[in-house]
């Protein structure tokens, strides 16, 4: 049995994180203070010591849970919070059946949502966090959950994991008091965890209707490219962790999403131009 336990619900998903150490569960409780505390978890994550011989080199955390994943990197104890977050991601990615899971971020306004997806480092997390400081409701930065029956998005407002310079961008936006933990030298560089704003947490059970799909890419000069529906479909199957497992319900949900929604790829050199592009495309295209 794990000595330390944190229970939390994010959107429709209840997690139990057990840890052999106090640090990771304390960090989770602080990062997710005010989130609902469920009685029964959907997914269990366990953080346990690596094999005994590793103990005398450095304390190291192995991520375990309902679903085992070969290649889940053991992390140093200093990165216990990252291990907990990764463990939660893994259990969701492998185990979720009720929703089509897209590796994407999303924000909402007037009941309608923008889905943003792209390769790791494309800036979807930062863009979602930035938009949530500028009049949008944050739905999630890691996973978008598409209800297989209604096609609506279920918010999944986990803590935002900001890479490297993105934390400074959010500090400049005035969100500095919600930047709670910073981890250096992780496999993904420096990661800073941003707690979502109060509205995102309070309204986590309010669904949103998908209205626009964007493929943002940070780094290049501002540009907008039409993405045809077949390409959108293929890219979203690649962005989904459970598309193949879901079978026909997943096909139906994803093909309906792609058939009904406009999609664009956007390049942007900085946050301000990204926000301006999203606002313009939203006004022109959102269904």
């Amino acid at each position, binding site marked *: 049995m794990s000595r330390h336990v944190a229970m939390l619900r994010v959107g429709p998903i209840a997690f139990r994180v057990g840890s052999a150490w106090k640090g990771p569960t304390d960090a989770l409780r602080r990062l997710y203070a005010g989130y609902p505390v469920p009685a029964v978890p959907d997914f269990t994550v366990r953080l346990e010591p690596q094999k005994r011989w590793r103990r005398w080199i450095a304390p190291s955390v192995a991520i375990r849970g309902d679903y085992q994943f070969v290649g889940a990197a053991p992390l140093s104890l200093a990165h216990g919070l990252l291990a907990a977050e990764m463990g939660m991601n893994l259990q969701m990615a492998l185990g979720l059946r009720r929703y089509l899971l897209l590796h994407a971020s999303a924000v909402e306004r007037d009941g309608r949502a923008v889905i943003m997806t792209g390769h790791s480092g494309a800036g979807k997390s930062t863009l979602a966090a930035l938009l949530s400081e500028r009049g949008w409701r944050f739905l999630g930065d890691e996973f978008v959950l598409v209800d297989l029956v209604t096609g609506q998005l279920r918010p999944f407002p986990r803590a935002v994991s900001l890479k490297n310079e993105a934390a400074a961008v959010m500090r400049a936006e005035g969100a500095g008091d919600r930047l709670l933990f910073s981890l250096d030298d992780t496999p993904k560089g420096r990661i800073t965890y941003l707690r979502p704003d109060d509205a995102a947490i309070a309204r986590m059970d309010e669904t949103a209707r998908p209205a626009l799909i964007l493929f943002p890419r940070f780094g290049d000069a501002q540009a907008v490219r039409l993405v*045809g*529906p*077949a390409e959108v*479909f*293929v890219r979203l*199957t690649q962005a989904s962790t459970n*598309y*193949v497992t879901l*079978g*026909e319900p997943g*096909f*139906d949900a994803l*093909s309906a999403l*792609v*058939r009904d929604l406009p999609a664009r790829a956007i390049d942007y050199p900085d946050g301000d131009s990204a926000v301006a592009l999203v606002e313009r495309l939203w006004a022109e295209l959102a269904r």
Partner: protein
Amino acid sequence: MLWRADPPRARRLVALDGLSLIYHRPSGMTHVVAPPMPEILDALGEGPADVADIVSRLAARFDIADPADAEAVVSARLAELAERGLVFAA
């Protein structure tokens, strides 16, 4: 050579702006296909057929200018459909 396909109920088809998505129920695989692949699968819904029969079934529904040309196209597409497990040599 005779070709056959699973019956239409084995597939879910969604047309997307010129291309089509096919969910193949027996395999659980999704395919993105271009014309005339869905049309060939439909034509095989009437039962196994050789290339000439498939072209004549298509000609009953579509305007085909050059049947010889059409046979070459249909043969090439059948080979691709067979690779994807959507048609079989009967």
